């Protein structure tokens, strides 16, 4: 297989970006149990933020990253506090439709305000690349920097979840909401905080890809679907799973792009093919059992999850009680 090192490197760089993209979704689904179809628009807004920052004030996207993340976090927090009355514990269909609608509104406001022309930020490092082995291995510097920052943010998130009080509180809520309340954790405030964090991560992704992908009002949706595919691959609501799923997807896409004829076109379909394969496999493995993500720990690995996990259908009452009376979900409902 020629070009294998190049293929591996490309897959890795893409995987870093996909990880960051999916991790916000995993956090919001894992902790808040909230399906956020507007997450793609956080990518879009982050990218536009970086673009306007560099266009109006000449600020490098990496410098604009932290302020934009803070703005994103605050907006996410406030938005969630505003909508939480309607959306926490609402049937999934409501959450999906409302966030879908919000995403539509944001997309079209962006379209009307900024037109659909493709934009891009172009910091100096995005246009050069590092070469190894006399040009046999080319690493675009822009992608390398983006991947590095993305992975750094993911590590910060991991440390936050593992070592800080607030992070541990989020994990507690992800595991068992009622018990977390008993421990004195203010669930609604944590929800808003975690949602703000997930929005901030989405904005960060947007900022990082602003120099790599074209910035248009519609860029969010494609990445959103890939993000959903990744968290389904990795197990809904698990951060480690999101990382694994992201690299799985990025390597899948890169291998298809390199080694399948016409691969760059088919590469877009890899996410959906993988998604369908996973759905089929899990369906076959668990036959008629239902899946329950409440039991999946936020930091657990896909392996232990596939051993013990069941998916949970979103029927608001009844069905999961029939499966195991002792499950945590019985406490929660």
């Amino acid at each position: 297989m020629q070009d294998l090192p190049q293929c591996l490197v490309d897959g890795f760089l893409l995987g870093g970006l996909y990880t960051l993209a999916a991790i916000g979704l995993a956090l919001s689904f894992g902790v808040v149990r909230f399906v956020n179809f507007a997450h793609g628009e956080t990518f879009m807004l982050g990218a536009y933020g970086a673009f306007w920052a560099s266009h109006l004030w000449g600020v490098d996207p990496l410098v604009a990253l932290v302020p934009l993340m803070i703005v994103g976090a605050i907006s996410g927090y406030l938005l969630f506090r505003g909508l939480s009355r309607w959306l926490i514990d609402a049937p999934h269909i409501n959450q999906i439709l409302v966030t879908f609608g919000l995403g539509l509104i944001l997309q079209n406001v962006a379209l009307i305000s900024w037109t659909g022309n493709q934009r891009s930020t172009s910091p100096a490092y995005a246009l050069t690349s590092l070469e190894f082995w006399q040009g046999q291995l080319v690493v675009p510097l822009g992608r390398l920097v983006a991947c590095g920052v993305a992975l750094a943010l993911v590590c910060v998130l991991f440390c936050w979840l593992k070592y800080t009080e607030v992070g541990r509180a989020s994990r507690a809520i992800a595991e068992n909401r009622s018990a977390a309340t008993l421990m004195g954790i203010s669930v609604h405030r944590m929800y808003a905080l975690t949602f703000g964090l997930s929005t901030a991560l989405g904005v960060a992704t947007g900022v990082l890809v602003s120099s790599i992908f074209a910035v248009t009002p519609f860029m969010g949706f494609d990445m959103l679907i890939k993000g959903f595919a990744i968290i389904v691959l990795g197990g809904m609501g698990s951060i480690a799973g999101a990382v694994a799923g992201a690299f799985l997807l990025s390597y899948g896409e890169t291998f298809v792009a390199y080694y399948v004829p016409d691969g760059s076109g088919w590469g877009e379909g890899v996410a959906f093919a993988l998604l369908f394969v996973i759905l089929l496999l899990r369906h076959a493995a668990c036959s008629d059992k239902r899946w329950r993500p409440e039991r999946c720990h936020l930091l657990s690995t896909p392996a232990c999850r596939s051993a013990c996990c069941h998916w949970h259908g979103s029927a608001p009452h009844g069905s999961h009680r029939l499966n195991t009376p002792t499950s945590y979900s019985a406490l929660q409902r």
Partner: protein
Amino acid sequence: MANAGLISLAHASFSGIGGYAAAIAAHTFGLPLYAALPLSILAGVMLGAFLAATTGRLSGLFFAIGTLAVSEALRVVALMVPDMTGGAQGIDVPQGLRFGPHSMAVAAAVLAGAALLLSLALSASRFHYACRAMRSGESAAQMLGLNPRRYRLGVLAISGGLASCAGGLSAWYTGFLDPGIAFSLDITIIAQVAPLLGGLYTVVGPVIGALVLTGVSEATRLGFSGTPGVGQLLYGVILVVSVLLMPHGIVGLFKRLLTRRNAAAVRSRSQLAAAHEGNHPNPSAERT
């Protein structure tokens, strides 16, 4: 499909596949409209059956994601097999076979009427009650002797056939199809917003919703012809407002007005509460 408790974002895939079936039938085989439409319906029914078989007992979010993935996957496939579908260039319906807009509108109205009759017939049948039971709880319904797989198959196949028929007709109406148009998210959005606006679990609701929505979108097209995106912005606003403030849609509002006027205030309120519980199971209410 919402009546059976399934959130389907697959409408674009059915409509697209129906469109392509009709367009390929016309372009490659030269079939007239009345032969191409049954092919679209067949394609839709097969896709519906495929979806039912692959998604098994998935529900809620996973079903939604799965169906969305199918739409996008079909778009990629349509793009990557140019020999059959014309790829990015698209495929057109030969001019000689097409009818004028007036006859197409009549055809559309006739087919819409047929779909409405089908929906009415289904709503009075056992099928409807089975779907409602599934919406409240699939496992519980299974305990009562209902085979959820079979009803899912039925729901997906029928809904798929209808959507594909619409897609085929729309392809013939515009005369041109390419993967972006055929599988566009717009179609899914309209398919979600219209029933919600009109009244999700009623027969006449989607009709009212579709008429209102088409009116709104045409009005914005005429009024704001300069700026793209206003129509979709309105769709988004209508979607959010309908879900948050008007969960029973226009039909629900209407019914509420009627009952408030007819019955005594207390009795009408208790009737409303019972209907809300039955149609829209509320998790927080169950916790008590």
